[in-house]
């Protein structure tokens, strides 16, 4: 009389086997499909609803914070009180568009450490703090505002760094966007509009767009000549009205279609100060592809700058591609043709000259602090590369200072401040030139004195359009920034 009971038992155990199979199917095989289903509220809840740490500037302006939901204390609303002012650097975390900026790259600090990993559990058991960390940026809010004001209504970028440490002091890319409008599940139309905007407000121009550097690249050309011993500041060059490019019918002219000095002879220093294309192009041919590309690469071209946000490399053509093409060497030496640079790359060129030829790794997060405001870790300044010798840097610094005192960069001058810099007016086929200024100040810092190196870029001439030059449009902006930060 046990047989039916035994059979009943087998049937019930069989249904349990079916449960195990169904559960395995749902969790192991179909699992990722359910997990990643856009209707799964966990996606939103995890990305957007978790508490994240605050992000503040060096002078304690809050750029991102998490407010607890009024009724559900488990979820939080991310708020960016500064709206578009820090959008590209701080980024956002959104239901529909994922995460960008520091919100993405420093996610591990910004979200809580309450995870199920052995280290996470051990951390809590050992008394560690699982609450989210905050970030203090290196950015100076007043300088940031000066940069924002200077670029108002324009497409462009400003990046300023401390040449001695690599700390980013201001980073602006315009036009910007308000990250608050992209957070929620209803942000689709706003996001589509931003994505389709021809002015590309979502593009982080400072690190993700490259432009012909134009005459600002002459710093690198001059550095190549100094490093290779081809020329010094007083080495004399011919001073023609135009320079014929071998193997082509093209010629190179100076900015005003005239001689550089007097039509007879010109020193490298004078040519640099006046930004003479004929002289530097001839010098470029003399330097040759190998040394030119090698020097540019020493400054960081063709490398990804190890910043806290993803940076595109600034392309410098491989030497082999133009070793037998002096015309290309001449045009590349002027920062045209195949050379492209991000504004951050050009700011690092100026910083290298300011810092005895050494480029520090740029960083924007100064400190990671705990929920109760204690600093947990600080970014230590780290050398990225030695671009040129201190001697060459000193010569370049001197030439760049003269360019501001008496040359194309005179609009960058600030009374009672020793400013060094180089302008750039890069020809862009079919539209107004992209205008640049790169530079630094003060040239001779007292011990402990603040220093700043920067790059200013305005696409297509900025407000001046076709008539724009780096000296007329970008240099005055640099002067304002020097004043804002150092005065």
């Amino acid at each position: 009389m046990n047989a039916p009971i035994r059979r009943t038992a087998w049937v019930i155990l069989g249904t349990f086997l079916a449960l195990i199979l169904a559960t395995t199917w749902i969790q192991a095989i179909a699992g990722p499909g359910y997990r990643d289903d856009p209707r799964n509220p966990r996606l939103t809840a995890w990305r957007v609803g978790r508490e994240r740490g605050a992000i503040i500037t060096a002078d304690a302006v809050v750029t991102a914070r998490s407010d607890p939901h009024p009724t559900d204390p488990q979820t939080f609303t991310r708020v960016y009180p500064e709206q578009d002012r820090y959008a590209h650097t701080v980024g956002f975390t959104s239901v529909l568009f994922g995460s960008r900026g520091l919100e993405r790259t420093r996610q591990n600090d910004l979200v809580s450490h309450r995870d199920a990993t052995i280290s996470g559990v051990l951390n809590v058991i050992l008394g560690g703090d699982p609450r989210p960390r905050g970030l203090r940026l290196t950015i100076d809010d007043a300088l940031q505002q000066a940069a924002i004001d200077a670029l108002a209504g324009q497409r462009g970028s400003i990046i300023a760094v401390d040449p001695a440490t690599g700390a980013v002091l201001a980073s602006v890319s315009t036009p910007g966007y308000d990250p608050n409008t992209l957070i929620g599940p209803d942000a689709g139309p706003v996001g589509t509009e931003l994505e389709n905007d021809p002015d590309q407000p979502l593009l982080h121009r400072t690190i993700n767009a490259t432009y012909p550097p134009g005459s600002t690249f002459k710093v690198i050309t001059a550095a190549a000549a100094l490093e290779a011993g081809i020329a010094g500041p007083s080495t004399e060059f011919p001073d023609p009205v135009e320079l014929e490019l071998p193997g082509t019918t093209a010629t190179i002219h100076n900015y005003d279609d005239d001689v550089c000095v007097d039509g007879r002879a010109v020193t490298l220093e004078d040519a640099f100060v006046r930004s003479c294309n004929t002289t530097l192009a001839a010098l470029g041919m003399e330097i040759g592809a190998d040394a030119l590309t090698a020097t540019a690469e020493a400054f960081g071209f063709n490398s990804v700058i190890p910043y806290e946000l993803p940076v595109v490399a600034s392309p410098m053509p491989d030497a082999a591609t133009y070793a037998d093409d002096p015309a290309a060497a001449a045009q590349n030496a002027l920062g045209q043709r195949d050379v492209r640079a991000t504004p951050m790359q050009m700011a690092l060129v100026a910083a290298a000259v300011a810092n005895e030829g050494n480029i520090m790794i740029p960083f924007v997060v100064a400190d990671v602090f705990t929920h109760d405001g204690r600093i947990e870790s600080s970014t230590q300044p780290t050398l990225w590369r030695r671009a040129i010798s201190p001697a060459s840097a000193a010569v370049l610094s001197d030439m760049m200072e003269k360019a501001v005192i008496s040359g194309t960069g005179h609009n960058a001058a600030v009374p009672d401040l020793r400013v060094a810099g180089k302008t750039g007016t890069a020809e862009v086929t079919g539209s107004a030139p992209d205008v640049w200024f790169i530079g630094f100040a003060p040239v001779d810092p007292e011990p402990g004195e603040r220093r700043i190196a920067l790059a200013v870029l305005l696409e297509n001439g900025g407000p001046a359009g076709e008539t724009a030059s780096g000296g007329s449009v970008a240099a005055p902006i640099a002067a304002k920034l020097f004043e804002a930060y150092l005065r």
Partner: protein
Amino acid sequence: MTRNTEAMLVLAGATLASLGAAMVGFAEGRWLDATVALTFVSFALAFGSIHVAFRMWAPNANPLLLPIATFLAAIGSTEILRLDPDLAALQRWWLVLAGAAAAGTVWLLRSSGIAVLRRYRYLFLSAATVLLLLPLLPASWPIYGAVVNGSRLWVRIDLPLAGRVLSFQPGEIAKVLLTIFLASYLADRSEAMSTVSRKVGPFQIPEPRHLGPIVVAAGAAFVVLIYQRDLGASLLLFALFVGMLYAATGRGFYLGTGLFLVTIAGGAAYAMFDHVRVRISAWIHPFADYTGAGYQTAQGLFAMGSGSLTGSGVGLGRPDLIPAATTDFIFAAVAEELGLAGSVAIIVAYAFLVTVGFGIALRSRDRFRKYLAAGLTILIGVQSFLIIAGIVRLFPITGITLPFMSYGGSSLLASALIVALLGRISHEEQT
């Protein structure tokens, strides 16, 4: 010897529960707090008192029942604490009360033995009937029925002095009483039912008067379905009756008739009731009406899928997004936070419990004890299958509790009583 092993395992289960409480605290960024100690104390009191009762009055009881129950309750209480600390505090009281009731049952049966229950079967039948009908009491009475989530399952009593409302689900207790009745009835009749038959055409069918119980069963289940709108309880009752009839008589006729009646009743219910149709379509296409009927099933699937193999970790998932996560859908909540590893462990634990239960039935020499053990085991097995199957979409959602794990005093009380009865039955077989 076995009692000492049981004591160690129950202690381990209580430790597991308090470790769970500690993990919930860690996940919320707190250090150890009183909840951890309270959880341990409530488990030690609840399962410890059953253990002591076994030790004193049923020393040969099967030593595996209590540890499995403790394990399941530990996982359940962790998840309830993680979802709703207030409910968890209540659940600790229910645990202690259920443990005391189970220990009291073992004490009551200490000298008379389980056989005493056999004598009072009609008392149990009447009590079960009254309990099943209680939720139909009008709302104006001091004891009244209440509709929760569309099902009239609850009875509420206003406590005038405390100013509170006491709620319970009488059906949970009724099903245990009905099992006792049925075991007793079948112990007297099964021999006749399994041998006496009448030939109709090619079929051997039982005497018509032996069809009485199954008709009663179908009727009771259908009444529950219609008046209380409770698909789960009605199916459970029906499966219990048919399962016990088959287990006692070994006649496939009862199974066949049972399946036939279920099909008829199911078809009728589908044709007659909107809420049944909605539930069936939500079962087959949960995403077709995602924001409506399919929402709960879909949330369960999202939870389980997000849990994946190892789960999010206790306190780190979002089972709070699942409707009824502390009761009907606690399996999905555990599956999210403990992953496939946790969900399979739970299913295996129920399978283990069912195996132990049927083992007790198979070893019993006395018919009543045998049928009672089988019936109680069927109850646990079918109930846990039905609700988990609803969550993993092997079956429509039935809305019943998961024994030992779901929040709820009535459910815990019933589950603890089942453990006490099974323990007593296994004890009597050993002596």
